[in-house]
C-alpha cells in the first residue's frame, strides 16, 4: 500500500498541488462526518488545470538566444546534468567522464530536417535552414512510450501529461526504443557530479533511470507557467487543447501549424507555427 500511495500522490499532484501551494492540503480530521477514515485531498485553488495540456511554439519568434535561454532555464530548474563541466574534485573525487552521445536533454534546438525528417525538402524556404527548432517530449495522446513501459513507470496523467516515476523505472529503455521523437534520455551514470548548482525545487535522478520533459507539472501545480514558456519571450505558449477559449486554441485557429511525424498517429501535443 505504501508504494501505491506514492504513485497516487504523483498522479494527483497536478490537480491537487499537494504540499506546494498556500492552501491547506490534507485534512486528516475530515473523516468524522463521513465515517471514512482516509485522508481527504483538497485542490490548490491556484493550480493550473487542463483537460489536455498542449504547447504551441511560434517559430517566427525563435532565435538562437531564445533557444539557448529556454534550454538553460529548463535544464537548470530540473537538475539536468551538464557533462561539459568538470565535477568538484573534493566532492566527487572518482567521477568519470561520460562518452559522447550519452548526454541528457529535455528541450533543445534542432535543424528543421532533423526535427521534421519526414518533411525534408530540397527547396525548403531559406529562413528555415538555420532556425533552431526547439524539440521536446510531445506528450502524445497515444504515447508509444507509455504503451511500451513494462512497469507503468511512464504513465499518462488525466490532463494529458506523460510523466515518469523515477523510482519505479527499471532502466530497460524500451520507452527509448518506442519514442519516435528521440525525446527520452537514459542516465548512463550518476548525474549529480555534473549538476553545477542543485535546484531545490525538483529531485535529482539516480543512475540507470530514464527521464524526459514533464511539462513542468510541478510548476503547473503551483499555478505557474513552465520554465520554457517563461524563458521563451513569447515563443512558447502552453495551454488546454480541449478548451476552445484557451490561448493556444486561438493560436491554432489563426495559424497554420505542423506537428512532428503526424502520420504515425501518436497525436503529438506540441504544435509549431511556421
Amino acid at each position: 500500500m505504501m508504494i501505491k500511495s506514492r504513485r497516487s500522490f504523483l498522479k494527483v499532484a497536478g490537480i491537487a498541488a499537494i504540499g506546494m501551494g498556500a492552501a491547506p492540503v490534507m485534512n486528516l480530521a475530515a473523516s468524522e462526518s463521513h465515517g471514512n477514515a482516509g485522508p481527504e485531498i483538497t485542490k490548490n485553488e491556484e493550480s493550473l488545470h487542463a483537460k489536455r495540456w498542449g504547447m504551441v511554439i511560434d517559430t517566427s519568434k525563435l532565435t538562437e538566444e531564445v533557444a539557448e535561454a529556454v534550454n538553460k532555464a529548463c535544464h537548470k530548474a530540473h537538475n539536468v546534468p551538464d557533462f561539459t563541466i568538470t565535477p568538484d574534485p573534493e566532492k566527487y573525487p572518482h567521477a568519470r567522464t561520460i562518452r559522447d552521445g550519452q548526454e541528457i536533454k529535455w528541450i533543445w534546438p534542432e535543424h528543421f530536417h532533423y526535427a521534421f525528417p519526414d518533411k525534408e525538402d530540397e527547396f525548403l524556404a531559406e529562413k528555415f535552414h538555420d532556425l533552431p527548432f526547439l524539440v521536446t517530449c510531445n506528450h502524445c495522446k497515444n504515447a508509444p512510450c507509455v504503451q511500451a513501459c513494462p512497469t507503468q513507470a511512464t504513465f499518462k496523467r488525466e490532463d494529458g501529461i506523460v510523466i515518469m516515476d523515477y523510482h519505479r523505472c527499471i532502466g530497460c529503455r524500451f520507452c527509448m526504443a518506442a519514442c519516435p521523437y528521440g525525446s527520452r534520455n537514459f542516465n548512463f551514470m550518476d548525474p549529480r557530479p555534473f549538476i553545477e548548482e542543485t535546484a531545490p525545487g525538483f529531485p535529482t535522478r539516480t543512475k540507470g533511470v530514464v527521464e524526459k520533459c514533464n511539462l513542468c507539472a510541478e510548476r503547473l501545480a503551483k499555478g505557474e507557467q513552465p520554465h520554457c514558456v517563461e524563458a521563451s519571450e513569447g515563443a512558447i505558449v502552453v495551454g488546454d487543447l480541449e478548451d476552445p477559449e484557451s490561448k493556444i486554441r486561438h493560436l491554432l485557429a489563426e495559424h497554420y501549424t505542423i506537428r512532428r511525424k503526424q502520420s504515425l498517429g501518436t497525436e503529438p501535443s506540441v504544435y509549431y507555427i511556421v
Partner: protein
Amino acid sequence: MLEIAFKGSKKYWLWIVLLLAVIGAGAIAYVDQFLNGLMITGMSRDVSWGFYIANFTFLVGVAAGGVMVVIPYYLHDYERFHRITILGEFLAVACLIMCLLFIVVDLGQPTRMLNVLLYPTPHSMLFYDMIVLNGYLFLNIVVGWKVLEAERNQVEPVWWTKPLVLVSIPFAIGIHTVTAYLYCGLPGRGFWLTAILAPRFLASAFAAGPAFLIILCYIIRKFTKFDPGWEAMQTLSKIVCYAIIANLFFFACECFVVYYSGIPSHLAHTQYLLFGLHGHNMMVPWMWSSLGLMGLGAIFLLIPKLRNNHALLPVTCAMIFFGAWIDKALGMIAGGFVPSPLHHVTEYAPTLQEGIIALGVYGAGLFVLTILYKLATTVKEEVRG
C-alpha cells in the same frame, strides 16, 4: 542425478575451470558496471540498446530452435530424433538462462527488476516476453529432467511429461514471436516496423538452433561414448538448409519492399547496413560477411554431396550460425537504431568491458550446457553400456 556432474575426466574439469574463469572475469566487469552505470558501454542516447539486447535476441532464437527436434519426435514419431531431443531441450535451457542474464545486465536498475511482476502491465510486450521466456525455461527444465531420469531408471517417463512437451511447442514459437513483437510494434522505427519480422526471426532461429545442435553433436561424439547418430544429424542439416533459405528469402523480401517503395524512413536503415549512410559504414563489411556466410552455407547444404561430407558439415553449420548471429544480433540492433528517429547517424560499437560482460554471460550459459549435457550423455552411456 546431479552427482554425475561431479565425476569427470581431467579435460572435463579443465573446461569447467576455464568457464568459471570466464564467468569470473565477466562478473568483475559487471560489478563495475553495476556501481558506475551503463556509461561503461558503447550505448548512447541514439543507440539505447546494444550488444546485450542483440545477444539476447539471437539466443532467444537458438532456444526456440530446440523445438525443431521436439516437433519431429513428439508429433511425427520420428525415431531418429529420440536420442537428441534431450539435447535440444537442454540447449534451450542454457540459452534461456543466457537470455535472462542478458536482460539483467542490460537493466539500468537491476535491483528493481521485480517491478515487472509487482506492476504487471499487459499493454507492454515485455510483460508477455517475461511470461513466455520463463514458461519455456520451466517447461524445458522439467521435461528434460524427468525424461532423462526415466531413461536412467529404464522406465517410461511419467505421463504428464507428454502434455508439457506439447505445450512447449507453441511456447517455442511464442518466445520468438513475442521477442519480434518487442521490436515490430514500435511506430517510429522503420527497420523493425514490418510484419515479416517475427517470421524472419523464426526462420533464422530454426537455422541457427539446429546448426549449433549439429556442432554440439560433433563435440559429443568426440568427447563421449554417446553417439547422437549420423542420420539424425543429416535430418537436422536439412532443417537448417530449409530454414536458412527461408531467412534469406525473407531478407530479400525486405530489401525489395524498402528499395522499390523507396520510403526514406524505411530505406535509410537497410541502406546504412548494406552500403553505409552519410559516410558511416561500420556495419557494411559485417552485413556482407553475414549474407556471404549464410548464402554459401545454404549452397553447401543444398548439394547432397557437400551436405553428406563429415568434415564439411560442422564448418557449414558454424558459417550459418555465425552469419545468423551477425544478421540478427548486430544487424537488428544497428539497423533499427541507425539512423536515429531524428535521422542523426550515431554509430555503435560495444566497448571491451561490455564484451567481457557478454562473454561472462556466454560462459555461464556454456557452464549450464556442459553440466546438462554431461548428465544427458552419461545417462545415455550408462543405459547403453
